[in-house]
């Protein structure tokens, strides 16, 4: 699945803007039930995806956790599914808390890769229930959205729904589509009139038939930077793109906007690898992540949406409209069915390749 390395380049600019807010956040909100310094001498290893994202996680989750408990947090990574599995097989994982994509969470539950979340330590009630799993707690949300060029489609004439993406008469021009079945099949079915509640299991034949109607007008992207470039260069006028990429392009002055209608949300989870030697401390680090000030700090740094709705109270009003879980946006979309994709990714990827060649 696609993983957005995100609006990485915006980090420094945002850092400056939120420095004051950050100072306030770090000082506040000691995790419940842990005495200050209760974990001093302990070391917890946190693994994520590197780059600006992990840097933001370090500042927003790990530092407040270390300050409150006295534990030392070591950064490691990048997260790699094969490496994660090998660690579990070896019986003593190097990592204590790890950031994983939704598809790996569902695959890993089946293969018993994770510790159960200890709800006596992690206050899961803070988190929107849609992002809480027995084995992982959602930390950020991002989404597949309909993006469009404001130069081609001025206000009032802009595309709004996935049906518009397939309407080549009303919205002529080249389209961008992610080059994988994930989300693309859902989008085709939504455009064909299937209600989100009736989507799964996906009717792949129907989806591919619908996709046939725009195939010759479509440019397929394989990386997120490519999707952004297609819009910036004017190669496409509308299409599927991740919300963070539209935010980044718009901030840099590109004439681009997005619609939140039927956006397809994906989630990163924090998990504890099975057999972690610091299980309790790992759970405490996850609990620190669930706190609204910490999630707000991360969103201000890197524009990834929080899973704790209360975080919006401290999120920069310039960033908030771009976030998938903004109360104004979150109900217009839905979370991708990772259990479906766990069971059908292989077969659907083969069919996708055949469809592309056909």
């Amino acid at each position: 699945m696609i993983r957005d390395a995100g609006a990485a380049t915006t980090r420094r600019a945002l850092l400056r803007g939120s420095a004051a807010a950050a100072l306030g956040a770090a000082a506040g909100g000691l995790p419940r039930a842990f005495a200050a310094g209760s974990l001093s001498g302990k070391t917890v290893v946190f693994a994520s995806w590197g780059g600006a994202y992990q840097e933001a996680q370090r500042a927003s989750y790990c530092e407040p956790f270390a300050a409150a408990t006295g534990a030392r947090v070591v950064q490691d990574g990048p997260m790699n599914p094969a490496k994660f599995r090998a660690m579990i097989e070896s019986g003593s994982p190097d990592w204590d808390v790890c950031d994983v994509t939704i598809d790996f969470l569902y695959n890993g539950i089946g293969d018993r890769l994770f510790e159960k979340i200890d709800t006596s330590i992690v206050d899961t009630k803070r988190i929107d229930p849609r992002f809480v799993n027995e084995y992982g707690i959602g930390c950020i949300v991002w989404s597949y959205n309909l993006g469009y060029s404001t130069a081609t489609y001025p206000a009032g004439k802009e595309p709004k729904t996935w049906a518009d993406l397939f309407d080549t008469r009303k919205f002529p021009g080249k389209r961008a589509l992610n080059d994988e079945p994930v989300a693309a099949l859902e989008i085709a079915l939504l455009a064909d009139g299937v209600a989100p509640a009736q989507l799964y299991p996906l009717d792949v034949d129907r989806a591919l038939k619908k996709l046939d109607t725009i195939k010759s007008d479509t440019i397929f992207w394989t990386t997120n930077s490519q999707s952004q470039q297609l819009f910036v260069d004017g190669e496409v006028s509308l299409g599927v793109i991740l919300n963070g990429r539209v935010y980044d392009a718009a901030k840099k002055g590109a004439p681009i906007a997005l619609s939140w209608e039927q956006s397809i949300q994906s989630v990163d989870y924090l998990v504890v690898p099975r057999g972690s030697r610091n299980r309790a401390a790992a759970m405490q680090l996850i609990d620190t992540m669930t706190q609204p000030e910490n999630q707000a700090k991360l969103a201000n740094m890197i524009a990834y949406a929080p899973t704790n709705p209360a975080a919006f109270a401290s999120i920069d009003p310039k960033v908030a409209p771009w976030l998938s879980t903004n109360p104004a946006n979150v109900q217009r979309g839905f979370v991708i069915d990772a259990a479906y994709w766990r069971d059908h990714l292989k077969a659907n990827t083969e069919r996708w390749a055949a469809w592309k060649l056909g």
Partner: protein
Amino acid sequence: MKRPARHLWLLLPALLVLAVAFLWPVGWLLSRAFTQPRPGLQNFVLLWQHPIYLRVVWNTILISAIATPITVLLGFPVAHAMTHGGPRTRRWLIFLVLVPFWTSLLVRSFATIILLQRHGPVNGTLRALGLIGQPLPLLHNLTGLLAGAVQVLLPFVIFPLYAAMLRIEPSLMQAAMTLGARPVRAFLRVYLPLTLPGLMTGATLVFISTLGYFVTPALLGGPRQLMVAQLIQDEIAQFGNWGVAGALSLVLLAATGALLWLLHRTVGLGAIAR
């Protein structure tokens, strides 16, 4: 001429590097085709049962077969000018052909994107000249892929051709024409056959390199330019299927071997060794 064999030990370091950095990992991957997830031929059965895999292998061979003659046709005049032009021309041409070698493949692919995109310089110039009304679709299709592949592969065909042409005795063409052959006939009957060793070396290099292309089709090609390296990458990175990836690699290797053998039988690959 028979060379004494006593300096063969000098090959050892190179062979050692090849064994450790190439034979061992490649052999490891290929052996996975027969051992993962279970010992047996199930991975090949799977490739056979899911027609998409062999279709992509065929597609890959087809794309390489299109790219190769285009590269040869474009490279031939360059090699010819390098051989028969003045020393200044030669120096410049060698420099220009080498420059792409010093540039990363990714940089060159993105440069091609900039050149060929809808609002890029190529379409802009053609429109300014009034030759076209709408921008031509030069990217994300076979044209884009070939543009990206051919410019990268040109040196592989130019240099062997240049080496072959240098060895052609100039008086041979004069002799042919003195004996009454028109220039075209002299070229086809005398010059061209003498370039064949270089031409076949270059064409073989281009063909085999294209078979393994990964970055170029992903960035410059369209949906129909799906190539086998992309499938192998998916099998490993997305699904962790080392067995299927190994089997796909073996099928590609076997197909390449069979094609080279066919070429050897029909055109004479022995010419390369000359």
